[in-house]
């Protein structure tokens, strides 16, 4: 048994490598973009607000799987082509930025308006008010929701199989079909569980770090 699992590992680890690449790239790109989405959504410029709302509606209102297929198989029809990996990342980032944007917007809106007044009388520019006063308080508020989203993301990465990328789940499925065995699927499940446990622990630490204020 152990021997069989060890034989599976190289293929699964290479799948894990793709999974983690999709995961981290999506996070690194969609979180800052999500801040911009939130700021755009809260701006006083009406057309910008309408545009951002439309974007959020489309991204949250259609399946991520459809969005990936749209970017990789659909856009080439109109002459826009991407390689597999960039296509998957583009769809993931646009999708996740919409979700993060809404989470951040909720966080920003729950901050007391008096904080803006206090910053203004002390001479803060709007940009400094946001980075020094609003953002640190927002991060604390949104951490639990972001943790949820991040854990969803690690599992959503399995959707990139549709463009033919060999991620973790696909590697397990291939082995399972080939060997007519349940073991590869169980091992894949354990991989996801371990990843989720690590993420949960990281977010717990982050929440502790932000518990110094209320």
């Amino acid at each position: 048994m152990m021997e069989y699992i060890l034989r599976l590992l190289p293929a699964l680890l290479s799948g894990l490598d793709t999974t983690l690449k999709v995961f981290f790239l999506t996070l690194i790109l969609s979180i800052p973009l999500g801040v911009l989405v939130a700021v755009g959504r809260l701006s006083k410029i009406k057309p910008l607000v309408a545009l951002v709302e439309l974007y959020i509606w489309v991204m949250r209102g259609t399946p991520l799987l459809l969005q990936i297929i749209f970017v990789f198989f659909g856009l080439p029809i109109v002459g826009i082509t991407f390689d597999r990996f960039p296509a998957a990342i583009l769809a993931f980032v646009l999708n996740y930025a919409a979700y993060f944007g809404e989470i951040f917007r909720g966080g920003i809106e729950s901050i007391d308006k008096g904080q803006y007044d206090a910053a203004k009388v002390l001479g803060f520019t709007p940009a400094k008010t946001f980075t020094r006063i609003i953002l640190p308080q927002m991060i604390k508020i949104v951490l639990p929701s972001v943790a949820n989203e991040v854990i969803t993301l690690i599992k959503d990465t399995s959707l990139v199989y549709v463009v033919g990328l060999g991620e973790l789940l696909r590697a397990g499925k291939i082995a399972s079909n080939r060997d007519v065995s349940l073991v590869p699927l169980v091992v894949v499940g354990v991989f996801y569980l371990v990843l989720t446990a690590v993420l949960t622990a990281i977010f717990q630490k982050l929440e502790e770090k932000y518990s110094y204020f209320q």
Partner: protein
Amino acid sequence: MVLKVQGLYKSFKRKPVLKNINFELGQGEILAILGRSGVGKTTILRCINNLVKCDRGIINVDQMYLCKDDGEGNTVYAKPQQMLQIRKKLGLVFQNFNLFPHMSVLGNIVEAPINVFGISKKEAKDRAMDLLEMLELSDKANSYPFELSGGQKQRVAIARACALNPKIMCLDEPTSALDPELREGIASTIENLAKDGMGILIITHDMNFAKRIAHRIIFMDEGQIIKECSKEEFFNNIDNERIKSFIS
């Protein structure tokens, strides 16, 4: 004269809140603006601190115009660079303090001097520690706002507002969040600031507090000043019905 307000008008959604407000505040003077809630007291404070823009009027802060008439009947505001200089002259203590919860007591006080006005860290910190010592809060420098009592938060808010040596200190309902036994403390703190030459503008509906601390009283009703006089005159011969009903 550290503050001069002339012909100040402000409406919200066409409803007039301030109708021709005129007053002055001298150096070291404690001026209390009294009146029921909703008569426009806080709006005056928000206009002076440029948290809302007035519709019309002249506000002069220590020889600098926050807003003035451009000669053609339009009210124009100071340019951003000058606005920053005016902000330096003004301190405001909010009714609910609005401390920054994610910063320590010291952080709250030094944040603006360092990050807005470019004062060196050491200088800002030394000044903050002096203020905290004066306000008997030295041991709380590294505490966070949620760890403080209401009275302590208020003193931190005063220290933060004093960090840039303003000429004018505005306090919005300073006794509203305090236990009665803490009133004397805040009264003497304010008096000390006035002794150093600061002009103090207090918005309150607390008669006893005004009686205890103010040099001069402005009484407001329905967006207008209906009485302006010394404290003695105000409390000794009340001839106005509206003031009578307010006090009793």
